């Protein structure tokens, strides 16, 4: 890149984005970003998607990032534009999603004066970003934007905010191209320690009751990591479970897959976790949703933990071997050691272990009471899965019971096909995320599995979806309740359903039509297949209102403060008394 002619800050922004390979940017204009919008107007390398709310922009960028493995980009104005992204930034921080969020700012000489639409954006976003910048000099714009992309995607990915004062956007200056810019010091450790890898592989080879426990880190590491993981799991013949974030890193329909682990995970996965003797944690972080009561967690196991973030290791659970490094690189090295040393798993012990697992599996933990006259939400998802199985499909979700049922009943054969707000649990995530996924994959089937409460949190994005002719499908499991919260009230608060029933809900079919989408409804089990079929075959945005049993609860469940072996399998199971500490947990 030569500096043949000078550019203004706004033009440098666009040039830097294009040089980073950004093809799509989600955004919403305002006074403090007008120069950048002007620069967007006069180019055609980057396509701008005009959302209806900045919350939509950032979740869309997340959906784009998670389904492509690339960095998601968005641009918003100062003040309210910036503050509207805070939930999404926190969401991306918790789930380690690479995002670059450009925010407008008042002119540098006005900063600190409570100017119109001024907010201390770097101050507000400091704890919810991986890093952030306030750019004070036009000559730094190019370098900082490249640095922001580097930081967002390197190591444990995360969101980065670049705050751009309006005078900086208008000043002319020099552009630093991508080859010149790196970060001065930030160099995450990629390669794992060879000694620790050798020790870990020896431990794995000697295991009698092993279990792979893998999370979002495998997906973040890239496709290759999922392939290597699959190879290793196949080679060893070990059972594997995924976290909510890790679904798709190993083929969901494979016999060695025990289903999701954790609070609403599979019985066999949780029991295997509890009774394993060697746990191989890969890109997972021993989250409280996964471990249950810590002092009862997998007590008799040796633990190996591979993670790119050293602070994840020994945070909640102390492990025997902690390997800092990119999971793809470490798995690659592990496979090499396994082959070089000609390790063989202990076939006899493994056979006994699989026998035990078969016993847990026989409990059929997802079983639910079928009905002929009311749609059970589980049944709706079973049918949905039947229709999308084997298709080129992407699933996003909102947050609640429907999300957990989707994680249980839908299976993912590949990474990057499943987008859900895991760490933060952000209602309103699914629709804009689906929009971002569809923008990146225009010809694929993209479905937001939603609850009627969550969908209302970012319903305005239907308007964006119409504008850009994105054929997103919204599959609402409408139980009239904030089901997940109602379930907790049942469990912890004597069934006093304070404020979890919505007395007035919109007619979702008419709502869809008002936006310009197709609205469908199913109220009886017999109508379900037709509605799903119609939803999928309609080449336009569709909202399918699936009216389901309002009283159904999500099982299996490890109630708060309980241990894995205390799983409740269904409504007829005896509920253990929830401890005082348990009540305190979220």
């Amino acid at each position, binding site marked *: 890149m030569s500096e043949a002619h000078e550019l203004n800050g706004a033009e440098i922004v666009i040039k830097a984005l294009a040089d980073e390979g950004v093809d799509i940017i989600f955004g919403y204009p305002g006074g403090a970003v007008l120069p950048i919008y002007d620069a967007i107007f006069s180019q055609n390398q980057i396509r701008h998607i005009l959302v209806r709310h900045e919350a939509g922009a950032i979740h869309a960028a997340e959906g784009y990032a998670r389904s492509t493995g690339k960095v998601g980009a968005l641009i918003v104005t100062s003040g309210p534009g910036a503050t509207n992204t805070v939930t999404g930034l926190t969401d991306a921080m918790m789930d380690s999603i690479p995002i670059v969020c450009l925010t407008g700012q008042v002119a540098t000489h006005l900063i600190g004066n409570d100017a119109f639409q001024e907010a201390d954006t770097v101050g507000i976003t400091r704890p919810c970003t991986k890093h952030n910048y306030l750019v004070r000099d036009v000559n730094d714009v190019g370098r900082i934007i490249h640095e922001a992309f580097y930081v967002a995607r390197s190591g444990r990915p995360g969101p980065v905010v670049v705050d751009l004062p309006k005078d900086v956007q208008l000043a002319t200056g020099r552009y630093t191209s991508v080859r010149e810019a790196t970060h001065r010091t930030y160099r995450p450790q990629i390669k794992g320690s060879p000694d620790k890898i050798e020790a870990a592989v020896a431990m794995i080879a000697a295991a009698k009751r092993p279990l792979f426990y893998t999370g979002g880190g495998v997906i973040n590491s890239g496709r290759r990591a999922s392939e290597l993981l699959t190879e290793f799991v196949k080679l060893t013949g070990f059972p594997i479970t995924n976290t909510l974030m890790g679904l798709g890193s190993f083929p969901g329909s494979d016999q060695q897959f025990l289903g999701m682990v954790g609070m609403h995970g599979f019985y066999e996965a949780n029991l295997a976790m509890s009774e394993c003797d060697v746990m191989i944690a890969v890109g997972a972080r021993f989250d409280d949703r996964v471990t249950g009561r810590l002092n009862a967690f997998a007590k008799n196991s040796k633990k190996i933990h591979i993670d790119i973030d050293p602070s994840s290791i020994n945070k909640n659970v102390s492990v025997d071997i902690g390997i*800092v490094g990119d999971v793809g690189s470490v798995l690659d090295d592990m496979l090499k050691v396994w082959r070089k040393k000609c390790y063989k798993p202990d076939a006899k012990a493994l056979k006994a272990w699989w026998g035990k697992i078969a016993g847990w599996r026989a409990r059929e933990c997802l079983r639910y009471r079928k009905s002929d006259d009311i749609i059970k939400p589980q049944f709706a998802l079973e049918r949905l899965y039947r229709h999308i199985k084997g298709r080129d499909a992407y699933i996003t979700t909102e947050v609640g019971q429907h999300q957990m049922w989707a994680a249980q009943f839908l299976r993912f054969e590949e990474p990057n096909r499943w987008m859900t707000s895991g760490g933060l649990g952000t209602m309103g995530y699914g629709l804009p995320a689906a929009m971002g996924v569809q923008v990146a994959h225009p010809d694929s089937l993209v479905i937001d599995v939603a609850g009627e409460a969550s969908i209302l949190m970012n319903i305005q994005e239907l308007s964006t979806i119409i504008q850009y002719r994105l054929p997103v499908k919204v599959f609402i499991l409408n139980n009239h309740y904030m089901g997940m919260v109602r379930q907790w009230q049942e469990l912890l608060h004597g069934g006093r359903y304070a404020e979890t029933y919505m007395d007035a809900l919109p007619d979702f079919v008419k709502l869809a039509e008002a936006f310009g989408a197709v609205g469908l409804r199913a109220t009886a089990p017999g109508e379900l297949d037709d509605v799903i079929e119609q939803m999928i075959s309609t080449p336009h945005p569709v909202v399918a209102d699936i009216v389901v049993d309002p009283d159904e609860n999500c099982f299996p469940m490890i109630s708060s403060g309980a241990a894995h072996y205390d799983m409740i399998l269904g409504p007829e199971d005896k509920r253990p008394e929830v401890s005082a500490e348990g009540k305190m947990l979220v």
Partner: protein
Amino acid sequence: MLDSIVRNHTLAVLVDNEAGVLARVIGLFSGRGYNIESLTVAEVDAEKKLSRITVVTKGTPMVIEQIKNQLGRLVPVHAVQDLTTDGPHVTRELALIKVKGNGENRVESLRLADVFRARAVDSTTHSFVFEMTGSTEKIDAFIELMRPLGLVEVSRTGAVAIRRGAVGFERGVSASNAATKSPLRKRKRVNA
């Protein structure tokens, strides 16, 4: 149990001297509920734009390990050194201590200052400002002695610390801690 013992640790943190870096470090401590017993910061290398933060914190070994790793995760942090576990080190604080009084008390305060090698850097007919450097404990002890003699106010820097011996920061990085970055050595970029 050994790993449930709460202990004070002195951490040295080398950071890029850029806007917001101190807020980032302090925000990390407050946001994650870690303790700050004392904190000092100043630029130590103008050419490389590096500042050194000395923070005294307390916690169990697991919490201290977390704190070090969380600090190491911040983008502008170069290196974290746990002086408490990394062998012998020197800790010093500077304090300015104002004492007011006449007669016997005034004489006694001067005498004690002499014993503690504190210097009077300001004096009026009925007051002194003493300057002293030393370990945190020594300063604490001197302040306690001044209290009955007419202690008015105290200003102190908090601890600064450094490892004993010839080894500098770049090789003194906590060995136990895989997380700690050591970019002062010319580091090659691993992968992309």
